[in-house]
């Protein structure tokens, strides 16, 4: 093995500590802001830990009484869940058969290339006609309409992920099932799906996080509590008249919690998805 001097080991540990601090400090500060009183947040010199822990803003945001800040915030939270949920389910449903067909027909490689290229399209290239289409069908400021628009991001992305996830599943099982006279839907349901479950689960999570994160379309196509998503609500808080920085931070903590928890819990499969998905083609 490589001989490592004491100084080298010390250097490595110091660097590791530095990286950990760089990653943790901004996140910790977001949390500290959310539990600090306004007096602490505007104190000079700034207090890095509040005199008294103040969790009232969490109560404010979860308070759903009429016309309160909490009501608007909670509405946007539910809208985000609805939009991301609908778009994810629809994307998975169209992507499973398509991803499987692409995985089993190497000749469709150019189709896959096209799908990956559409995933990379900038949203601005579609946004103007999508606005007119939604307006025409009365789907502006509507969670269903926004979910439909999100399919333009999620469907190609999930198909791409599933295709590379299906590739390692051996074809022999399908052959055997075909010889036994299984119909197409039976083959998918009984033979493929159980084997592909982990892949589908990872793809579902990626898709949901992608939709949860989306901001541009939501900013364009929603205007009030009926459909506004969490990302737009936070942008409103950050850019608006609110001068309660702690409240903005609290909204950020709440919006970040689901994806961060998923990230921590599903770390292993997420990392392998992140590092392999893009490489496999």
């Amino acid at each position, binding site marked *: 093995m*490589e001989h490592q001097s004491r100084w080298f080991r010390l250097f*490595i*540990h110091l660097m*590791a500590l530095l990286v*950990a601090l*760089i*990653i943790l400090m*901004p*996140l910790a*500060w977001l949390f500290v*802001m959310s539990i600090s009183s306004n007096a602490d947040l505007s104190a000079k*010199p*700034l207090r890095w830990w509040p005199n008294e822990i103040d969790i009232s803003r969490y109560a404010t945001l979860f308070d759903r009484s009429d016309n309160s800040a909490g009501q608007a915030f909670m509405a946007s939270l539910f809208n985000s869940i609805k939009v991301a949920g609908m778009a994810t389910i*629809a994307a998975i449903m169209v*992507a499973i058969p*398509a991803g*499987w*067909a*692409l995985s089993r027909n*190497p*000749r469709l490689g150019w189709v896959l290339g096209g*799908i990956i290229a*559409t995933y*990379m399209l*900038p949203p*601005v*290239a*579609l*946004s*103007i*006609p999508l606005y*007119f289409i939604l307006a025409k069908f009365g789907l502006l400021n509507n969670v269903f309409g926004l979910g*439909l628009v999100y*399919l*333009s991001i999620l*469907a190609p992305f999930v*198909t791409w992920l599933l295709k590379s996830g299906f590739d390692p599943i051996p074809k022999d099982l*399908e*052959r055997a099932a075909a010889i036994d006279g299984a119909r*197409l839907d039976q083959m998918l349901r009984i033979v493929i799906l159980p084997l592909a479950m982990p892949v589908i689960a990872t793809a579902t999570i990626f898709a949901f*996080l992608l939709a949860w994160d989306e*901001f541009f379309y939501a900013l364009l196509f929603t205007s009030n509590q009926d459909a506004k998503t969490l*990302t737009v609500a*936070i942008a409103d*808080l*950050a*850019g608006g008249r609110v001068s309660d*920085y702690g409240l903005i*931070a609290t909204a*950020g903590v709440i919006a*970040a919690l689901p994806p961060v928890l998923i990230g*921590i819990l599903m770390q292993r499969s*997420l*990392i*392998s998805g*992140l*590092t*392999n998905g893009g490489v*496999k*083609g």
Partner: protein
Amino acid sequence: MFSERMSPRALLLMLPLVLVMIAVIGWPLVDTIRLSMTDARLAGTSGEFIGADNYTKTVSSRNFQSAFWATMRFSVWSVSIELVLGVLVALLLNQRFYGRTLLRALMILPWALPTVVNATLWRLIYNPEYGALNALLTQIGMLDAYRSWLGEPSSAMTALIVADVWKNFPLVALIALAALQAVPKDIRAAAISDGANAWKRFRYVIMPYLIGPLMVALVLRTIEAFKVFDLIWIMTRGGPANSTRSLSILVYQEAFAFQRVGSGASLALIITLIITVLAVAYLMIMRRFAGEAR
């Protein structure tokens, strides 16, 4: 029996996806092309055909040129720093030290943080009066007077780049780490016993394993950075004095704030063209890389 020929069954399986993609991608894209050749406005007129006028006007306009260079500055700086930092941190994570598993786990956090929350967080950190950056730099004596980091054209772009790098370098590090772990241990050991120094080991032993995944990360990150909207919209809205206005922000303003849908569409297609070139580069790298892996 499935792979030999393209069966009608494959087409049937593709059908739902194809229908969805025509409805939400194909049709809008074609319509953007049509709109880009009209003088349509968001409300009211559906627009007359005016040929390539929008394109010639857009490309020669100062707004486009400044937005193009702002986007380039943002993308080139963010992505290069992310790659260098990502590789360095991956090399670190590949060493043995106490808490290595924990540090690897921490790397997922910035990735998981929603972009909008990241932008909001950094906007608060850069706040000219109550921001943590001013407080920190003053308390350790590196800054005399509080600054408006996002309010001054000289620092706004740098501040945005820092926020983007913080969120994205951990992902590059994880990708690079996965590649490093694929380097066979005996090859490294052999290089050491042959007396290769650290740089030579990196260049000739490790680099061949890193280069493929890094190229993929480079192109994907560049495409993402070139589309940047959320981060800038929340932190600066393209200001101050339009110094951070990216191409996507410009399209938004043109098409939806000023309602000039025709010229907004032409601008959107110019961005699309640039990204298509990058996407083709990506697909070619993938093909080469997949060929080598086999």
